[in-house]
């Protein structure tokens, strides 16, 4: 085998692998990514019902209703709009009324959302970054109070 042929094989296989990988990435990015919306963005951009998305905002005070068999509904608000989320399963430790939340699932109608996953980071001052940005944009941003005892350092 000549040097030229060997080099061709090397370059060919490198290009082949890259091509396959690029194809996989393009295909996966088309089908497997999930967009993030706040309740008012849902109203503004009106994604079709049945779209898979992430919904973020604050859990409205007093809106959490627990049903039978670990079913739960709560409202996610961003100051202007609200969307009712229904979820069945165990909620994360840091899910609380008045706190930020991100729910992943399917939009049923512009005000109804069926979540199959509720995320909350494990930190009591946590505000999901997307939620914080969205609230800041609308002027509803109130930074979380300092953790207990933090007054001491000021």
């Amino acid at each position, binding site marked *: 085998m000549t040097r030229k042929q060997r080099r061709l094989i090397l370059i060919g*296989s490198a290009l082949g*692998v*890259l091509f396959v*990988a690029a194809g996989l990435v393009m295909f996966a*990015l088309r089908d*497997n990514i999930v967009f*993030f919306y706040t309740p008012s963005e849902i109203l503004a951009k009106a994604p079709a019902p049945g779209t898979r998305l992430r919904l973020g905002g604050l859990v409205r005070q007093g809106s959490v209703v627990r049903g039978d068999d670990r079913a739960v509904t709560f409202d996610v608000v961003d100051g202007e709009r609200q969307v009712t989320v229904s979820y069945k399963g165990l909620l994360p430790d840091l899910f609380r009324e008045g706190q930020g939340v991100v729910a992943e699932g399917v939009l049923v109608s512009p005000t109804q959302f069926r979540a199959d996953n509720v995320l909350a980071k494990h930190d009591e001052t946590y505000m999901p970054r997307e939620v914080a940005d969205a609230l800041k944009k609308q002027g509803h941003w109130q930074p979380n109070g300092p953790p207990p005892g933090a007054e001491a*350092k000021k």
Partner: protein
Amino acid sequence: MIVETGHYALVLAFALSLVQGVLPLWGSRKGDVALMAIGPSAAIMQFVLIAIAFGALTWAYLSSDFSLLNVVQNSHSQKPLIYKLSGVWGNHEGSMLLWVLILSFFGALVALGGRRTPQELLATTLSVQAWISAAFLLFILLTSNPFARLALPPVEGNDLNPILQDPGLAIHPPLLYLGYVGFSMTFSFAAAALINGRIDAQWARYVRPWTLIAWIFLTLGIAMGSYWAYYTLGWGGFWFWDPVENASLMPWLAGTALLHSATVMEKRDALKVWTIFLAILAFSLSLLGTFLVRSGVLTSVHAFATDPRRGVFILAILVVFIGGSFVLFALRGPLLKAGGIFAPVSREGALVLNNLLLTTSCATVFTGTLYPLALEALTGEKISVGAPFFNFTFVPLFIPIFLAMPLGQVLAWKRGDFLGSAQRLTLAFILAICVGLLLAATRGEPVVSAVFAGLAVFVIIGSFAEIWTRISGSGWAPRTILSRAMGLPFSAWGTALAHAGVGVTLFGLAATGWGVERILAMRVGDQVGIGPYALTLDAVAPRKGPNYDETVARMTIRRGGVEIGQIEPSRKFYRARQMTTTDAGLRTYFLGQIYVVVTEQNASGTIDVRMYWKPYVAMIWLGALIMALGGGISLADRRLRIGVARRARVRPVVQPAE
């Protein structure tokens, strides 16, 4: 006073790193031996100074010195001793200090163990290392000083984030940092080779131990982190394709590729430019990982202690070092003498394929991790790229790696015989099919689990095919075999073990398909079946810990009616931070695990329970341990070989004329 000493030592270390960054480099340019000799002493002194600083901070934590802001924010006088200690690096400032401590530790190791390294290379390498060190010391001193004092110290601290109060945290960050920062050594060596414009097979030999050390610790760090997430986050998952996890996976993939390409460079004096590129890439990805974790630009489930303002500083460090090294690479790379091109079917051909697939899969992880960030910057749209993306892109690229791994090992250097080599894997192949069929028949759905488990068996058995051929060549008498086995170089055993470890991990991953999950409400006295076991809830009782109160659910595990153990999942309420965490109950039986999580008690007196039976799940982490062990054995081989250039005994095939 001790605290001030620590602070002062840190400032001194910064000044010293500037000296170390300039003088030895200047000396190597001018051929001045005295200037070059400053490098090793400065590197050792720098380590001593940073160790003093780290010791001072540790002392402040152990003595609960609440005049230090950092201690107030992250410690509590009631906290158990081990968490006071691990609290030192459980926060941003402390973890950055640990970062530079490890950086200077590696610098000192090179200075001590580098007497065999040519002086010019050593001096330049230590200078480059000092620049990294200077950048991060400046970062600590300017933006995240752990020694900041408070004018009015409070009487009690805020406590460490409860989720971090776990023995796993005591080990995980140091291991991970040893891996991340370990690649700084290979980076410095690569940059030094580019600056000096000289690189040969010897270079690969000096760098090999450092790559191996970094790789071993990174492997352990990732495995430890994954196990920690598995039992503390309480979701039963061990890998979430989360940005922070990806940040540690990317340098691992690049580092694994580097280990393999450096072998080719060492043995065949080829792939030089590529190896240098990988050395730069591995550390660049480590820096990127530090940036992603520390800056909080990406939403993550694991990122603790983040601060966007500091992100800009780390981003600047990132741009300077990655940009600078790639510019250096572009300028000097073409000057390096290119190595030969070799036959596609050969050991080195297989290693090139390995490199190709590893770097490509690394690129897909990179794309998936940073695409949301790029899209948001460009269009303002927020997206999340989750597990489906990675399963779709990463897994197809790894399947050929698994198939080629055993094959590459049995191929000969220079020119391999594909069919002859494949024949040596017949046994592994037959066993793999048998195990796959057996598992498909006994465990049932999903079939893909059985297929991957079969592939794992192929990898495990195939890893030892080369060794088996080498030791059974001259007869089957046990004594001959034993003596031949003892005579094999450690690196052969190391390679075989590390590859087998990959197979063991793959088996554990494949078996996740057979796991069982149940979510239900239980009353005291209820019994539920999960997999081959039955769990009875005996009692739900409160218990008091040192700095928390917990509710413990006591359960008995039975198999076939016979009691075999207890399991105690609990919920802990941390008093200082008013925060609740879930503590999973875990029991390991025959490599499988029962995993139970409880949530709050319902009004009706029941308690919500989530339980899993995960067969063979322990193999995921066991495999990583085996990989690291293989790396360690391979490392031991180096001592025997250093300085003695081992050439192939005979060169049977002469390269055809071209």
